[in-house]
């Protein structure tokens, strides 16, 4: 073959008729890859590699996912060993955001404090310090 690629000119390209298609699983099985950027970070799922065994999977993961980004650590897990929830069951998580009694922002009682202070003539110390500061800055 007369190619513009000197590498190709050095080899013999097999004819289409000689081609034996890949059989199932000849590209080996897949591993899910988890990547940790630096110590202290979570491992984040970043994708998959095809590999014949664990060591090779780690090596391929280093190349595919550690080659262009800062990496401290990698995990690989066979895709068939990962146990996911069902998206059809996403509804079991639906009311989670509504349970605001578990959120700090759900707790507000300043109004109640003010009302009580006013009714019982209690001086609010924060208010007092703010007024003193104001006086001092005016002088």
């Amino acid at each position, binding site marked *: 073959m007369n190619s513009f690629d000197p*590498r190709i000119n050095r080899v013999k390209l097999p004819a289409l008729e000689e081609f034996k298609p890949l059989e199932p699983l000849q590209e080996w099985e897949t591993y899910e890859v988890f990547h940790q950027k630096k110590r202290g970070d979570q491992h984040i799922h970043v994708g998959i590699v095809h590999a014949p065994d664990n060591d090779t999977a780690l090596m*391929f993961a280093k190349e595919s996912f550690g080659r262009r980004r800062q990496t401290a650590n990698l995990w690989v897990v066979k895709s068939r060993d990962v146990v996911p929830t069902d998206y059809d069951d996403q509804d079991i998580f639906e009311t989670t955001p509504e349970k605001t009694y578990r959120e700090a922002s759900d707790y507000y009682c300043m109004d109640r404090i003010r009302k009580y202070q006013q009714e019982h003539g209690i001086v609010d110390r924060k208010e007092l310090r703010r007024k003193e500061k104001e006086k001092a800055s005016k002088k």
Partner: protein
Amino acid sequence: MSYTGQQKNTIKDLLFKMADDQLILGHRNSEWTGIGPFIEEDIAFSSIAQDKIGQSLALYNILHEQLGEADPDTLGFARSEKEFKCCHLVEYPIGEYEFSLMRNFLFAHADYLRFEMLADSSFEPLAKVAKKFRGEIKYHVMHSDNWIKKLGTANDESHSRMQSALNETFNLALGIFEPSEFENELIEMKIFAGEESLKSKWLETIKPILEEASLKLSDEKDWKPSFGGRKGSHTEYLQPLLNEMGEVFRIDAKAEW
């Protein structure tokens, strides 16, 4: 630290052969980019090739900045075939995948041990580079070991291919340790502990791995190291490689690309 002219020649000889080995091997490995046997492995081989070329660049930089030689591009792309000091092993074409894997295995171990020895070099720029690239070369060793062990033992075909590859490359690999005319000076100056010492460490390291891979080495009495490369006498493969590597550069060596 200041060196005499003769001392500088000693150091340059060492650096040139190391840098040339890495440039030529990196170049050969880069020929697999895009045509590797398996997608993820294609990516891995390309990284290894880039690492090697990056390492050669660091060494050419020392030659340029500390020892008065020309700039790295000129050293890499414009020297004549006789001026190159690489060993025969790295010059050979990529061949089948087993050849390239075995070549990398034999070379990576030698490189890793060499860099380990150089981490204590009295020539500071070299010691620095040796420490810096330790991690990269460690990975090259891991990569090679993985394939050698697995393919040496997987099935009849893979075993026989790996054994043939070992038979083809071993004498070439012994050429890595061709003694230079400066061995004694290098040892006296505490720059490098010498090729003999490196070779014994190398043999000690690769023998158990080859055994684990069920691969056999011939008897020592039958070994025929492929020497000549360190003195500028190369195989028929280097000149065409250099012609190709310099093809665009030589259109106009003064141009900026």
